């Protein structure tokens, strides 16, 4: 069993290293995110809409769209040179590959948010800094990225093997993310506006959703990478 997670870790470390080696890819994803955040905040400013209220919506729409760019690359390395076969033989279990790729995508998304969230904060000039619940805010970012990375990794494992990958991926991804979107926006919004609503329910909902959509792909990944 420790061997299992050891291999997950090995692939994860390799992928993260590779992510930094080809830093321009990560960078363009981040720039795309920054661009989205800028356009959104600016558009809201132009229409004089209350930015405080829109913050979490803008944030998550930006993350969802940028995540398509980030996640879409996760299997590209393996696809280029038929390395997937070698990796499969070496890991001996398709679940290992799923977990490693999922962790890598999660890390990339969190890194991405590290840049984008403060920028959005500045752009929108959000005023409610006083009663922000920092723990809940960071927790909601983490939970949202987790679900996004898990579902995204599984679907990317599918679309990378098809010719029309780039078009298909977001079409498959977004409908599955609706419950996540609802939950995560609730959490972020509450964290920001400090409304004293019974919120723990949404946190539990997100945790269960994420666990379900991490275990389910883990089981189904055998069929995805059957070759």
């Amino acid at each position, binding site marked *: 069993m420790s*061997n299992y997670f*050891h*291999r997950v870790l*090995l*692939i994860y470390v*390799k992928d993260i290293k*590779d992510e930094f*080696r*080809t830093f321009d890819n990560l960078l363009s994803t981040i720039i795309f995110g920054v661009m989205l955040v800028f356009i959104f905040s600016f558009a809201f400013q132009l229409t004089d809409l209350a930015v405080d209220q829109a913050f979490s919506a803008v944030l998550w729409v930006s993350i969802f769209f940028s995540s398509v760019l980030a996640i879409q690359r996760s299997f590209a*390395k393996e696809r*280029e*040179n*038929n*390395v997937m*076969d*070698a*990796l*499969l*033989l*070496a*890991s*001996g*279990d*398709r679940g290992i590959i799923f977990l490693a790729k999922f962790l890598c995508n999660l890390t990339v998304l969190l890194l991405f948010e590290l840049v984008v969230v403060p920028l959005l904060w500045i752009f929108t000039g959000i005023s409610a800094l006083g009663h922000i619940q920092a723990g809940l805010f960071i927790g909601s970012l983490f939970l949202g990225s987790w679900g996004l990375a898990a579902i995204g990794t599984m679907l990317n494992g599918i679309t990378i093997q098809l010719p029309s990958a780039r078009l298909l991926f977001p079409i498959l991804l977004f409908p599955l993310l609706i419950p996540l979107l609802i939950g995560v926006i609730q959490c972020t919004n509450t964290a920001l506006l400090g409304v004293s609503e019974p919120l723990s329910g949404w946190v539990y909902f997100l945790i269960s959703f994420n666990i379900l959509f991490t275990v389910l792909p883990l089981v189904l990944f055998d069929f995805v990478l*059957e*070759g």
Partner: protein
Amino acid sequence: MSDQLDVIGVSKQIGPKRILTDVSFSSITGELLVITGPNGAGKTTLLRLIAGLSKKSSGQILWNGSCYGIDHGSLGYLSHKPMLYETLSVLDNMVFFAKMYDRFSMESIERLLERVGLWLYRYEPAAVLSRGMQQRLALARTLLFDPKLILYDEPFTGLDFNGQKLLREVLEEKRANSIQIVISHELSLLQGLPHEEMKLLRGRMVREGVSCE
């Protein structure tokens, strides 16, 4: 210690196409089995089934009498595609796979890379290597551990003269404690190596168990 591989009545169907029909053979440690046949006869598919990379439609593939999947654990696979991480350096490729196989030791990697003549290229990314060098690197990866079953899919393709000589040495050397299955149409390159021959035609076995010197 002797192992046995049994392929019993294996068929593979993809959509309307029947790739393999009722293929059966057995092999034991020490044997070198060569599969020949024209393009599209299903040779690669057969090898991928044995490796567990692809799923058979019916039949059984047994290792010492029991089923196995991709988790075989002691299976080497050398394809005509080098299957290497192009952005990683020669050394990183070797280190990564050695760790994945739980056989990491810098000395043995150095020895292997020296043997395939790539030690001096160890910091080059795999992408810049020539086709023959990539294939030699793939060969070195296969030698990282001691597979009990080694599958070669057109391994001579892309190899230069020295590489071919090296591969023949490996084939001879690994005979002692592994089953080896080779797909090749360049039988002349196998001259001098005693082997069994099996021919596939349109997914069916048409000739088996011909011993050749």
